[in-house]
């Protein structure tokens, strides 16, 4: 086992963390553990749980462990140390297990609970202290959500395990890994890696075609990441930006196409006519009315009076009525060939009451 351990390396980071139980930010040492390839595999930090009885407070050091994206994994106590409840009761073995379960729930009720609530309403509080007349909404935690008699310990450790340290770990992991590892992150099934990677790529100002292709590959497979991806793509240099938008539009589904259109509407880059004409040809290819409407709005904004677009729009007059009507209103303002004009006039005659 020794040789195995030698392949890992640990790096200490001094971090400053806000904890809702502490008035001032707390300085702590976050220990990063990297494998032989320099990939962070986990983090740990020594924190403390405070138990106050009357005027005397006891500080129990606890070591917390996370994976490389800040997901809490487990805790350790120093040998011989124990956790306590109110009234000096000791933790039972099942309480230690339950504490681990509570800390692993990143959506625990402790997320929204305030420190004062814990202090003023210890969880052995009776069922009702509240009448229609009284003000306080007493804190009531379900048995499954807390270790009875140790709400303050749960609260303190939950916020250490799931508080600011999570984003610190994510950022640190991003900083630690190589470009190759970031590309792996992009494609990882766990989307948290994707977000870490994109944030770090923006930090490092990397928008190469190779990385863009990796992002595109991932997003085509996972449309829910489209908006996040565009926050990155939008920052790419002109050539690569147009390349990426083009790929996402022509290879993607409705979500990708709508996001691509929106990006082109918003971009400050000037767009070549041929590029937009190519998009215009899709007017009769995309399925939904929403896309046709968005695409026509884009083309009106940035490629007005393109003969190619007009020709495609004319074809829309034969399609589903909403698409046809949208095309009609665009075409109505254009200089058209006699044949096109005749087609538009015919549409008007037929549908004038529905325009």
């Amino acid at each position: 086992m020794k040789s195995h351990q030698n392949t890992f390396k640990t790096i200490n980071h001094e971090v400053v963390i806000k904890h809702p139980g502490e008035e001032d930010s707390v300085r702590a040492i976050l220990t990063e553990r990297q494998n032989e390839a320099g990939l962070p595999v986990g983090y740990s930090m020594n924190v403390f749980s405070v138990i106050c009885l009357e005027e005397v407070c006891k500080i129990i050091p606890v070591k917390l462990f996370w994976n490389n994206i800040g997901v809490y994994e487990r805790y350790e106590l120093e040998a011989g140390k124990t956790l306590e409840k109110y009234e000096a009761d000791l933790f039972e073995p099942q309480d230690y297990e339950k504490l681990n379960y509570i800390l692993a729930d990143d959506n625990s009720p402790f997320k929204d609970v305030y420190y004062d609530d814990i202090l003023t309403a210890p969880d052995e509080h009776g069922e009702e202290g509240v009448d229609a007349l009284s003000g306080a909404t007493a804190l009531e935690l379900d048995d499954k959500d807390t270790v009875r008699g140790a709400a303050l310990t749960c609260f303190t450790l939950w916020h250490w395990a799931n508080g600011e340290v999570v984003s610190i770990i994510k950022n640190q992991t991003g900083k630690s890994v190589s470009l190759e590892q970031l590309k792996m992150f992009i494609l990882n099934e766990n989307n948290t890696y994707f977000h870490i990677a994109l944030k770090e790529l923006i930090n490092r100002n990397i928008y190469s075609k190779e990385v863009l292709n990796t992002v595109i590959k991932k997003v085509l497979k996972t449309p829910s990441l489209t908006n996040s991806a565009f926050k990155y793509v939008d920052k790419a240099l002109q050539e690569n930006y147009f390349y990426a938008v083009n790929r996402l539009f022509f290879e993607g589904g409705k979500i990708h196409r709508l996001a691509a259109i929106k990006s082109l509407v918003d971009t400050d880059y000037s767009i070549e006519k041929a590029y937009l004409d190519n998009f215009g040809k899709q007017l009769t290819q995309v399925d939904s009315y929403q896309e046709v409407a968005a695409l026509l709005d884009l083309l009106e904004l940035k490629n007005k009076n393109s003969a190619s677009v007009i020709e495609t729009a004319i074809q829309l007059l034969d399609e589903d009525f909403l698409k046809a009507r949208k095309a009609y209103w665009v075409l109505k303002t254009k200089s058209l060939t006699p044949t096109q004009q005749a087609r538009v006039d015919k549409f008007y005659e037929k549908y004038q009451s529905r325009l």
Partner: protein
Amino acid sequence: MKHIVDLTDRSSDNWIQMGSDEKRTPKRDKAIITQVVVIGGGMAGICAAVAAARNGSRVVLVQDRPVLGGNASSEIRVIVHGVTKLKSGLPERETGILEEILLLNRFYNEQHSFTVWDHVLYDFVTREPNITLILNTQCVRAITVDSTIESVLCWQLSTETLLTIQGEQVIDCSGDGLMAATAGAIYRTGREGKEEFNEKYAPDEPDGWQMGATILLSSKDMGKPMPYKAPPFSIKFDADKTHPDRKIIPFVEGFWWVEVGSNDDIIADAEVDMHRLMGFAYGVWDYVKNSGKFPEADTFVLDWVGSLPGRRESRRFMGDYILSEPDQINHKIHEDAVAFGGWPLDEHNPGGIENLAEPPSFWHEHFEKVYQIPFKSLYSKNITNLLFAGRNVSQTHVALSSSRVMGTCAVMGQAVGTAAALCIKKNVNPRTIANQHIVELQEQLLRDDAYIPERPANDALDLAKTADKIYASSISSGDVNLLVDGVPRDELGETHHWQSNGLNAEVVFEWHNPIALKSVEIKCDTNVKKNIMMLKNTRENQAYTTIIPPELLKSVSLELKIDGEWVDYGTQDNNQKRLIKFNFEQVEITAFRITCHETYGAKNVKLFEVRCYN
């Protein structure tokens, strides 16, 4: 020549003539003719008056105190609970007019001041052009002819004026219901026996017990030891004999269980009880300060003590239906449901603090989900044009133990106010509304952002449902088609919203054939699963937020598609409401587009409903 005024001349004075028996009454009478008279300016009365006024009726709102709010006012300081705590610990907020009030209070009274709250309510009522607000005036008598109230007589304390108010529909939201009682409306007091309504929490035999009234107090920390000497009128609190549920901590906000009940005529006893309550309130404070058991109170002093006891129960007027415990705990579906409740069955013990051995409240049961309140329990069975809302409605004592909280009273108020306006429009009485027009009443309430549980809206006039295409710029949960499903909140675990993925977010409604349109109405998210009522001691937690709900839509604009072009129809910035309305001159359109620009903090916008009308 100098004009000399003889200050002793009483030749034209009403009073000297009265003294000499020349005149029986002072001639300072005033007659007012209106459409809807609302007696009582508590939460129920406010909502009734506003609902009737907004639905087109001229309204007179009569309040016997100088401030609005009743039990919630700075005079009494009870928290506006409603469905603030289901079994889950979370609320199911009322929405509707009450929501508007609570949000307004968030914007203008972040400091949670009760006296400012009084005037938030004043502001809210006086914004309505159709309401005449009459303060310091008690309605003392109804003039009833053939079981119909023709007018009500009111005494205005500040001006020594007798007001005769004539209205077509009369709503008693006064709690005690003196006006309704003098009209001859049938009422009950006391507790029903178990058998009558099959209520498991009722006593075996009926009796006269009514839950008591309470005097509240509050205290503040002076940061240094502050000794206390109780006044002679205080009554010693016998802590050793009390049931442990009479908790002293937290003592900062007073003690709801400083309560005196009655097994006979609680109204007749009110002044005697008030003196006793003062004694008990100061007695408990003396115990806090001087028993030696609460050293944490050493630096605390009384900051405010009520003088006007807050009443929980007295008359309950009988309607065509009597709401009872089985309706509530079995969640009975009422065809005529117009309101809802969900506060626990919080029945206080007979006697209050004078019955120390029993717990101050039995807390019989908490609800998993809300229950419906039927319209037939909100109007009189024997007076044709009398409606009521609040604690005096047609219900049993046990049912009252849950429905009495002011949030629930408020939704009843909105229901009867809307019903009264409908009565005026149709020239009918409430019973006819119940039997022939109940769907219309329910639809109007739902349109006005009231919530009727498990009763989706289906307004035939709403054109949004007829749209041929509804789509959104993005989506993170729900679906745009849920915006027209008639359910204005996520209900019983089912999703009924559309939520964007980021901002700005657009929703487009489009029709094949042009439609005429003059209004678009949007219901946005305010997170009804967190309380926002005013508290004396606020804390952010799972069930309560101290800030403006971050979900609330702050900035939204509307565009209409007219002749193929999007035309800007305005932006509402700094919105403060859940129900957002755009009204405009009727115009022919083929589509409208709502753009949600900003919330009060949430990164996505969530809408529950979009409607449009011509």
